[in-house]
Every structure is written in structure tokens, then in C-alpha cells.
């Protein structure tokens, strides 16, 4: 009983995944902060074959004035996939998917940034996906959080983008491209590593309540690992060390 397109096998006989990972093992993650000189803060996250870059500008005056908020900064996020980031070229410009991701990512970041400190201002967060192999919205959230910290924007916590899903009726951590295409569910979340809260949540597919709980458990475990890599990238950056 499989979702997706049917008879595609995604698990080996020993229960490991096609790329050899265990069910609760994520793809290798590396992070570098401060990579774009023009930006006030920036970061690149490589997660498996994904490459996500985030740039932060601001706080700056919010204009047009109608987007201003009297009591806080607005966070203006653009999640964008480069035309060459996917197997089939994507036409430049936004689509419905990228607009939705931009909206909920902005709302997730507003939940951690101390936006009350900058009334009437705007913080721009640009997320550019240079290579996409499933999981880009999560890599983008992680990159954005590091870029915000790199820009010196005060936050009450970092936020870590992670996803678990379901393939062949088995809950697994961090779906890759094939698992995403032929899998049964995906649960991307944005976790606040210190408070344990969730500021980003999407899900589609089919998950029983128990499967949901297991997937969420994997997500929290992975968030802890990625959080360490984020902190390490920021420390290297502030110590002047380069990766």
C-alpha cells in the first residue's frame, strides 16, 4: 500500500533508505554565515544537494507607508527558486507556491525576531534556492535564521527548519527528492531550539495521529543537531574565522 506513483521502492530490505540513511538520519548539513558582502547579514545552508542562501537587509524604513506597523517591524520574505535550481528550468518570477512559502516563512520569523524593537520599520529577508532536491523551504528557514543573527537582529530564539515524512508506510526523517516524489506524507516544521515551540508548520499527505507524533519526534531530534551547526557557523563568523 503505497502513495505517490505506485511501485517505486524507497526502502532497502534491511530497512535502510536508498541512499543508505537510517529512517531517523538526516542528510549532511553545512552552514556558512556572512557570505554576501552587500547584505547586512547572510548565510548559505547546504543540506544534501540543496543549496539555500539567505540575505537580510535592515531594519530599514518601511515603505510604502501602508505596510508600516506602528508597534513593530514587518518582515518581508521572498522565497525564490533560481531558474537553474531544478531539473527542469523554472521560469523566473514568483508563483503560487513560492508566495505561500514566503508568507508562512515571514510569519514564522516574526515569531522569533524581537519585532517590537523596530516600530514602523521593515526587515527584508531574501531566500534564494540555488539547488533544489526536496526540503528547500526548511533549508531556507534555517538560512534565514542564521542570516538574521549574522545581521545582528535581536531574536528570542533561533528557528530551525526540519521535515519528516512517510515512505512505504514508514516514518522517516528529511525526505530526499525521490522520497518526496514517491512518498506518502511530508511534515516540514520550524522549531525554536531553546523553547521547544513550533513557529512554522505545514503538512500534506496522509499521517495517522501516531505517525504524526513519531515524525514530530524525529523533527525535534534533527532540530537539535542542526541548531549546533548553526551556532557553530555563527561562532566562526564572529571569530573572524572562515570556513
Amino acid at each position: 500500500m503505497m502513495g505517490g506513483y505506485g511501485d517505486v521502492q524507497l526502502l532497502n530490505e534491511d530497512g535502510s533508505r536508498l541512499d543508505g540513511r537510517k529512517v531517523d538520519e538526516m542528510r549532511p548539513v553545512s552552514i556558512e554565515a556572512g557570505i554576501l558582502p552587500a547584505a547586512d547579514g547572510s548565510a548559505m545552508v547546504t543540506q544534501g544537494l540543496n543549496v539555500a542562501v539567505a540575505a537580510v537587509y535592515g531594519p530599514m524604513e518601511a515603505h510604502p507607508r501602508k505596510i508600516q506597523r506602528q508597534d513593530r517591524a514587518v518582515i518581508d520574505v521572498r522565497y525564490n527558486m533560481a531558474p537553474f535550481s531544478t531539473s527542469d528550468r523554472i521560469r523566473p518570477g514568483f508563483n503560487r507556491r513560492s508566495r505561500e512559502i514566503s508568507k508562512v516563512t515571514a510569519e514564522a520569523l516574526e515569531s522569533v525576531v524581537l519585532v517590537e524593537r523596530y516600530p514602523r520599520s521593515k526587515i527584508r529577508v531574501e531566500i534564494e534556492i540555488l539547488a533544489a532536491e526536496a526540503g528547500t523551504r526548511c533549508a531556507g528557514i534555517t538560512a534565514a535564521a542564521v542570516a538574521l543573527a549574522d545581521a545582528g537582529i535581536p531574536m528570542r530564539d533561533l528557528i530551525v527548519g526540519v521535515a519528516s515524512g512517510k515512505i512505504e508506510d514508514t516514518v522517516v526523517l528529511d525526505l530526499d527528492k525521490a522520497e518526496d516524489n514517491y512518498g506518502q506524507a511530508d511534515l516540514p516544521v520550524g522549531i525554536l531550539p531553546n523553547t521547544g515551540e513550533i513557529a512554522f508548520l505545514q503538512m500534506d499527505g496522509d499521517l495517522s495521529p501516531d505517525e504524526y507524533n513519531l515524525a514530530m519526534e524525529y523533527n525535534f531530534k534533527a532540530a537539535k543537531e542542526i541548531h549546533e551547526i548553526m551556532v557553530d557557523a555563527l561562532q566562526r563568523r564572529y571569530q573572524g574565522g572562515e570556513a
Partner: protein
Amino acid sequence: MVQLVPTLLRQELARLAEEDARIDGRGRWDSRGFNLETDCLYNAEGSAKVVLGGTVVYAGVKFELRTPWPDRPTQGSLMCGAELRPVAGRKYEPGPPSPQSIELGRVVDRGIRESGCIDMESLCIVPGEKVWGVMIDIHVMSDQGNIFDACGLAAIAALRTAVVPAERFDVGEDHVLGVKGTPIMASFTRVGGRFVYDATEQEELGGDERIHITLGDEGHLHSLQKGLKGAFTPAEFTEIFDVAQERCVELRKLVAEKEGN
């Protein structure tokens, strides 16, 4: 256009929350009552109107013949979109689809699509040549809170009462669209610090984040979405998830009644 903080409203909502009360007297997990009408639009092949307090939405289903995608020659397609046009309220402005309307349409779409209630193979007429495209359009006419649940209900009710207009397209006899399940959305808003079900416009204005949960006939999750500023704990989710299960069962019955079975 500068928005004043509804500070006083937030204070009042927080005070009410402490007393476990709501601004319109409802209990925390009560809805305002869903009023569902189907078959109400002449030119739509399936249609529904939902009135929920002062919220009014319509959904209409249309069919078109299409060529299937080359990699899925035996599958039709489903598309669900929502329009949040200026008719819906003072705050809505004309222009290209807003992020709000895109999110609304996509969350409703995912709930229906991922539940698997439409068998895409059943929409095939001639493999590789001709399949049905099913389009659900949702029209929000009056927004006084919780348009997500109203739209989700209208969409699935319109779909479940739709008749495939095969005769008009010269591909057989008209027949009921086979829909195998009734995915239902339940939305929760943080108001005065804690989550409530079916928030009014005022509660949304003075509240924080929303969580949208779509559940299928078996109680499985098919779509989740968190919107707006705010963060929640896993324990909070567990609490609202249990309420969602109950509310979805009730609304699934309401849809069944309108189908007359």
C-alpha cells in the same frame, strides 16, 4: 493606512481568556453553527453556500476536458482556488491574488487533494487523450471570521454534490462525481493566549497564530498549516487536535445530510 494596535481589544480578550470565556459568550470549542446549502448556483456543476455567523462563502465546481500530462496519461486533475476579493470586507483590496487568498486556496486544495477523496484515474475518458479537469472555485462574499473552515466545508460539499456534465461535452451520460471521502478542516486561533475554535473577526483581530487541521474519514491528518505570527507547543497541538477530531466528525455528518444519504 497605518493600523493602530488593537491594544484594548487584546486586553479584553486576555481578561476573558482568564475566565475561560469568549467575547460572544461561546465556549472555547464551540462553533457559531455552520449553515450549509447545496445546489444553489445555476451554472455550476456542483455548488454550496456556507453561512457561519457573519461569514458567507460560495463554492462552485466546473469541469473541462483536457489532455492528460504525458507522465500521467490516465489521470485527470483537480484544482481548487479561492478568491478573496474586495467584496469580502473593507480590508480587502483589488489587485492580483494576495498571499492571503493564495494560502487559503492552497490549504483547502491540499486538504481535499491529499485525502485522496478524488480518484484521479476515475477522471480519465480516453487514456493519453482526454481526461476531466475538475475546478473548485471558492468565493468569499463576507468575512466575519474563520473563512478557512467555511471555505473548506463549501468546497467539499460542492464537490460531493457535483454532476459530471458528460452530455454537454459529448462524452457519455451525465453522472455523479465519485468522491470517496469527506475531508474536513478545523481551524484554531490563539486568542487571549489560548487556542479557541472558530474565531470571529474580532478574535482574529486581537489574536495571534492560527492552526488549520484537515482530517479524513479515518481521522488521519491530510493537511496542516500554521499561519500568522506566533508559536505553539506540542502540548497545545495535542489539545486542539482532539477537538478537531470531534468537530470534523460533526461536520462530516452535516455534509452527508445535504447529500441526502
